[in-house]
Structure formats: C-alpha cells, structure tokens
C-alpha cells in the first residue's frame, strides 16, 4: 500500500472522473484537476465563489461547479480550458444542481423546490419541470442513463413522472399510493422502480418501467418505518432497512420478504466472526519499533491498532437514542451490496461503532466489525468484495472475506479520515479528511 501526500480540499468535494484518469478537487473557489496516477496538476480553474457542489459529466469532458449561495453554476471543459459556461438562476435561487446522464444537460433545482430547470449545453432549449418533491431522494436516473424518475407532489398527493433523458419527453406520469413519498430508486437493470414512504408509514411500492404497480410491501404498522433501501447489483434483491433495527430482503420474483436480518445487542451466532479493533499504544524504549514507524517521524501518541477475533457471545456497544427527538438515531441508515452480489454491509445507527456484513448466499451473518470510534463511512471496492471503512481517526480499515486489517495512514497527525471512496478500477482508495485528502494506492499483488 502506498500513500500519496496530503492535498487540500474543501467541503469534501473530490471526485474521480468516470473514465478513471483524472481527479478533480475543489479548494475554496478553485477547481484543481490532477492526473490520478502522477497527481500532477493538469488544469486549474477559478470559480466566482466558494464551490458548494462539483460533478463530472458522464463523458469525463466537463465539470460543473455549483455555488448555491450565489445561484450560479459554472461548467468547465477539460479539452478546451478557455471554454466557459455560466448559468445564473437569478432571484429564483438554487438548491441543487446535477448533470443529466448524457453529459449535456444540467438540472437545476430552484429554491423551495419550485421547479427544475433543464439547461441544455447543445442548444438553446430550456425545459421546466414543475412541483418536484423535496424529500430524501426525489430524483433518480436509471443506470443506463435513459430514464429519469422524479417524485412530484400536487394537491397533497404524490406522483411520479418518468422522463426519457434523450429529449426530456414525459413517458409516464402516475399517482403513487403513498402518504408522503420519501424516495425513488431504479433497480440496476432499469426495469423496476422502488418507491418508499416516509418513516411514519412502512410502505415500499414497486413499479415497473411502464408505470404498473407490481407489488406493495409493508412489514408492520404504526412504528417508524423505512430508513434506507438498497438494490443488489444483479437486481435480485431489494434490501429495506428500517427503524426497528432490521433489514428485510425482498426477492425480485415474488417481491415478498425472503429473510429478515436482525441486529441484536448480543451476538450469539457461532458462524459469524466478530473482529474487534484493539488499540495499543507503543511504549517508548521497546525494541519492537518497526522501521516503518521510525521513518515516519512517529510521535509518542501514535497509536497502533489491530483486530482481534472475539468468540461469541459478544456484546455490541449501544448508544441509546433520545426518545424525544425526531428522526431518532436508531435503525438501519446505510446499506451497501458488494459488487459481486455476495455480501451486504449494514450499519445500525444505535450501534454506531459496528459494521455488520451479511453473506447473501447463505443469508446469514458473516462478520461484524467493531471499531473503537463510530464508523463514519464504508464503501465497497467496485471490482472485488473488499470493504473500506473509516471512523474519523488516522486509520483506514479494510475487510475482505480473507480477513480484516487496520492500516495507519502515514501522514501528518491532524489528518483524520472522515469519508472515503474508491476509484472505479478498485485499485485506489481516496481518503478525505475535514479539509484534506490523501490517496492510497493498493498493491496489485495483494489482490485477494
């Protein structure tokens, strides 16, 4: 594993181009484009204000930088650094901005979600979409980039509009049987749209591409419902995470519950491996100091940590949520399938230090990683079943079916890994601190 040096960034705005060649970072109002392997600065652009959001176009030729306070969006070209484009939303304000899948249209959501303006970079056409819904995930593009599903709300009723991204033609528009639609998500094969209701009602609706209702699923009534959902890459499973600390897996043939994954406070399963991170502070004067340690100019407070396997039964550390607050910190808030469809990683919000890994072939718990600090982010390698996670300290943790390892990021002390993501080839891990970033190049020989 090689670590690069530390670079500056702001707002966690750091993205790798879809073709994997470039790394774009925003530092205050500047946009820096580097080569991913050499980390040399290729382009440098200056925006008019501090950038709030940045995104690559799908063909890796353009980058959009949105400045929400000013209501401005600036688009930069990699091929032609002189080319400029500025979209000003005027007094109507700007709340969110994103590319369309073809890389030639920009969708701006105005303040108060009054409308979505579709700006074209190819011609002078401008389209408007009225009454988009402001919710957890109101807009989703299908993975092949052909369709867009948008949640709308009119007359206290929820609707979904399916647009053809080619020419923004409204393909379907139908009402949904939800009380308060919270989100839409396409299945990876683009044929099924999953729609879920707000947490006050547990309801997951499945619509086919042409707007027919395929199935409704509701696990229970009255208690707080769905918190997050995730499709498996093969579209075979839909994982529904809810506030009752359970993940329910629906199968794509009958859309019925296949199995419930529970997150109990005491793990008694003998088949699951529990990795517990154990910190040890090296005492000065031991002859155990490795060469690596010495060359990095270690300080006295450099903590090493390793994983120990704890035999069952294991008590999972729980943080009780405040019962009087809305959106309590309990329930499954994030789930991710591995790219080979075999594993599902979940996180239960009232067990913030643990990440649970489930084996989808056996439909059972495979491993639990217990960290010393709350886990901030976990991401699967896009090419192989390898999970990287971080917990706001100077270490990055990797899990794979072969085992678990804790790697200290050998950079200056103040760098704490707050978020991370993988390069699309899976060989590079980009670690983001509060206002710094660092790249970690995995050795190709270590591929498991």
């Amino acid at each position, binding site marked *: 594993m090689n670590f690069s040096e530390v670079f500056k960034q702001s707002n966690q705005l750091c993205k790798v181009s879809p073709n994997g060649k470039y790394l774009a970072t925003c530092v205050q109002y500047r946009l820096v484009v580097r080569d991913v392997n050499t980390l040399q600065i290729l382009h440098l652009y200056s925006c008019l204000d501090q950038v709030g959001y940045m995104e690559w*176009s*799908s*063909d890796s030729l353009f980058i959009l930088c949105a400045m929400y306070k000013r209501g401005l969006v600036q*688009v930069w*070209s990699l091929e032609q650094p*002189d*080319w*400029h*484009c*500025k*979209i*000003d*939303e*005027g*007094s*109507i*304000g700007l709340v969110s901005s994103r590319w369309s899948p*073809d*890389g*030639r249209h920009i969708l701006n959501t105005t*303040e*108060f979600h009054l409308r979505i*303006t579709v*700006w074209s*970079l*190819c*011609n*002078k056409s*401008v389209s408007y979409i009225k009454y988009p819904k402001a919710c957890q995930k109101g807009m989703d593009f299908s993975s092949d980039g*052909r*369709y867009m599903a948008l949640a709308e709300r009119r007359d206290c009723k929820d609707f979904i509009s399916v647009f*053809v991204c*080619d*020419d923004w*033609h409204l*393909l379907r528009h139908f009402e949904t049987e939800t009380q308060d639609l919270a989100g839409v998500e396409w299945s990876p*094969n*683009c*044929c099924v749209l999953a729609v879920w209701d707000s*947490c*006050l009602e547990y309801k997951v609706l499945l619509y*086919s*591409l*042409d707007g027919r209702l395929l199935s409704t699923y509701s696990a229970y009534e*009255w*208690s*707080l419902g769905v918190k997050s959902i995730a499709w498996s890459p093969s579209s075979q499973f839909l994982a529904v995470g809810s506030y009752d600390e359970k993940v329910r897996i629906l199968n*794509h*043939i009958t859309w019925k519950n296949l199995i419930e994954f529970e997150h109990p406070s005491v793990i008694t399963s003998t088949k699951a491996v529990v990795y517990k991170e154990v910190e040890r502070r090296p005492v000065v004067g031991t002859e155990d100091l490795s060469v690596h340690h010495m060359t990095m100019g270690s300080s006295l407070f450099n903590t090493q940590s390793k994983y120990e396997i704890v035999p069952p039964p294991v008590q999972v550390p729980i943080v009780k949520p405040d*019962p*009087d*607050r*809305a*959106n*309590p910190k309990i329930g499954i808030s994030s789930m991710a399938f591995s790219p080979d469809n075999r594993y599902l990683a979940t996180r239960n919000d009232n067990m913030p230090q643990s990440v649970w890994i489930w084996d989808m072939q056996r439909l059972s718990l495979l491993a639990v990683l217990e960290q010393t600090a709350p886990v901030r982010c976990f991401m699967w390698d896009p090419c192989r079943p390898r999970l990287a996670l971080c917990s706001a300290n100077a270490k990055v943790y990797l899990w794979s079916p072969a085992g678990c390892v804790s790697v200290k990021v050998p950079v200056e002390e103040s760098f704490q890994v707050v978020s991370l993501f993988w390069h699309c080839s899976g060989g590079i891990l980009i670690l983001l601190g509060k206002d710094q970033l660092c790249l970690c190049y995995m050795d190709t020989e270590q591929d498991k």
Partner: protein
Amino acid sequence: MHPVPLSRNSYSNFCTFCTEENVSECILYINQELSSLGFAVICNELHRIRELDVVAVLNNIYSLLQLHRHALRTVEDLEMEQVKLSSDLDYQQLTNSRLKDQLELARKENNKLYEKARQLEMTIKTLQTCLKNEKEEAQKLQSIIASRATQYSHDMKRKEREFSKLKERLNHLLTDRKDKKQGIDVLNYIGRSDGRRGHWKTVKTEAKHEGEMYKTLLNDFDNRQRELMVENVELKKVLQQMKKEMVGILSPKKRDQRGGKQEDGPDQQTGSDEEEVCDPGKETPGMSCEHAREKLTNSIRQQWRKLKSHVEKLDNQASMVQVGDKDGEEVISKQTHEEEMEMLKMEIQQCKDFIQMQQQLMQQQLNTPCDEETAALLNDCYVLEEKERLKEEWRTFQEQRRTFEMERKSFTEAAIRLGRERKAFEEDRATWLKHQFLNMTFADHMRDVKKDSKTNGALSDCK
C-alpha cells in the same frame, strides 16, 4: 274388646281344666298356685279335699278379678303407650329422612357455589392477564404515538420554517424592482456526447420512446423467464433423481424386513408413479403440465414420508437395542457407538501428541547449537569421557599385566626349582642305584654275572 273374647277363651279352658274326677287335684293345684301368688289357700285340710273355704275362695276370686282388671288396665295402658311410641317413631323417621334430604340438597348447593366461585376466580385471573396485556399494548401504542407526534411536530416546524422563508422571499420579490433574470451564458454550444444530431419532438419520437421502453421490459421479462426455466428444469431433474434414489433405498429394505404381502403394494405404486411421471417428463422436458407436476410432487412427498418413517424406526431401534444383542449385529446402540467414537478420538489425540513430542525432541536433537564453542565443548566433553574410560581400562589392563607377570615369575621360579629338584632327584637315584649295584655286585658277583649283565643292561637301559 279384645280381652273379653280372650277371657272367654280362657274361661272355656278353665271349664275343661276341672271335671268331676280331678276335683281334688284341681283344688290342690289351685292351692299351690294361690299360695305361690300370695293368696290364702282355698282348702286347708288335706284329707277333706272336697270341702272348700268359701270365703277364701270368694276372696281369692275377688282378688283375682281385681288383679285381672288391673292387668287389663295395664295392658290397655301399655298398648296405648306402644301406639304412641310407634307413631312417635314413625314421625321421627319421617323427620330424619326429610332432614337428610335437606342436608343433601344443602351440600349440593354448596358444591355448586364452590364451583361458581372457582370459575369466577379463573375468569378474574384471565381478565387480569388480559388487562395486563392491554396495558402493555396501550403503553406501546402510546410510545408509538409519542414518536409519531415528535416526527409530525418536527416536520410541521420544518414546513413552517420553509413557508416563512417563502413568504419572505415573495415579499422580497414583490418589493424588489431589480428582478434578476435567470439565463445561461455559454461561449459556444457543444455537440451531443454521442455525436448525433438532436431530433424534433414528434409523435413518432414519442412512439419510438414507448417502443424502446416496452422493448426493455420485454427483454427483462425474457431474461427472467429464461433463468426461471433453467432453474425449473434443474429442480425437476433433482426431484426426479431424489425420487429414484428414495425408491431405491426404500424397496430393498422393505423386501428384507417385511413379508410378501405389503411389498407388492408400495413397489407397484412407486413403479406406477415412476412410469406415470417419467412419461410426461420424457415427452415435454421443458413444458410439463400441472397434472404431471402435481403427481411428481405428490409422489416425492409419499416417498419422503416413507423414508422418514423408516429412518425413525431405525433410530428407535438404535436407541433401544444394546450392544451384544442378537439382533444388534448390524445396529449398534447409539451410546456405545458414541463412546467408541470418543475413545478413538482420544486415542488419535494421544497419538498426535506423542508424535508431536517426538518431533520436538528430534528437532532438539537435530538442532545442535550453531555456536562453535559449545560444539567444541561438547565434543571435548565426549572426548573426555572417552579418555576417562580408556584410562580406567588401561589401569585395569596394567593391573592384570602385573598380576600376570607375577604369576609368570612365580611359575618360572617354580619351574626352575622343579628342574633342580628333578636333577637332584635323578642324581640321588643314580647314586642310589650305583650303590645298590655295587652292593649287589660284591655279594653275588659270580652268581649274578648273568644277572648283572642283565641288570646292567637294565640299568643301562634305565640310565
């Protein structure tokens, strides 16, 4: 009424009692009776039997009559008494039975009331548990309501905040003259990413989009159906195989255990099932009709049930039969089997430990310390040992040599002495013989000339 006919009867008896002949006996008898009763005798004189004391007789008769009347009265009284008593008794009995009935009734009532009380207690208990459950549910619902209420109020507050922002913005827009229009400022328009030209939105394009959408869906359905078909065929194959195997397992066993009657039945059935199912399967491997499918699943279920019962029977046998039983040759009891397994496992473990130990020792042996000094030292130690041993041997060898030498010396001395003694002895013998000869020759010179010559000859021989 009653006593009068009786008395008449008794009077008639009296009439027959005394006749003309037995007057004197009668008088005597009556005298005796009267005297025994305490009355005066009717006839004092014994020899004048026929003369009766009339006064006494009349008095006796009178007292007898009185007595009789008295007796009658008492009888009457007694009879009355008896009647009264019997009626009393009757009455008592009646009351007794009545009271007994009452008691029974009361007991029954009591039992009924106990039953009722018990049932009421039970209902109370169940109602209490119901109440507890309801209370718990109510609490749960309350907590749910509370969380929903916090969620609602949070959402409401959020919406209100947004609303107020909206109002502010609206106000701002109404008052603000300078309306910043939205617009795009681009250096030059760029081509589409796929390089093609854009199309006008027409009905044709709309239809094309619809078509494409349906195509996608159809493709997805096709793929799914294909996958499901493949899975279906595989599962069917597996089921068929399972059925065949189950039939195979069950039928030979059945022939061994049961008699002739039953085996035909199930075998025939299974045979027929196989036939029935195999045929449609052979005809249409992919598309089987529901009938055939049901038949297959039913037959599998049947076989499975049979297999299950068979295995259960075996299990029971195994747990009941002891080791060493006649029937238990094939079926060992589970426990002994397990015990043996445990023993074998332990043995294996022991052997493994032993092997490990040996290995370790061998390693130790082989891993002589790499340090040369210690090696040399060790070598020296060995050499020293050898030296010591050799020294000891040398010493013993020397001692032995010495002893041998001494013995040899003593032997040689002894031999020399022996030689000298022999020589002396020979000389002595020679001189003695010479003397003898000389003595003999002087005496018998003439006589023993021949003898001498002979003895000389002998002597010379002897010498």
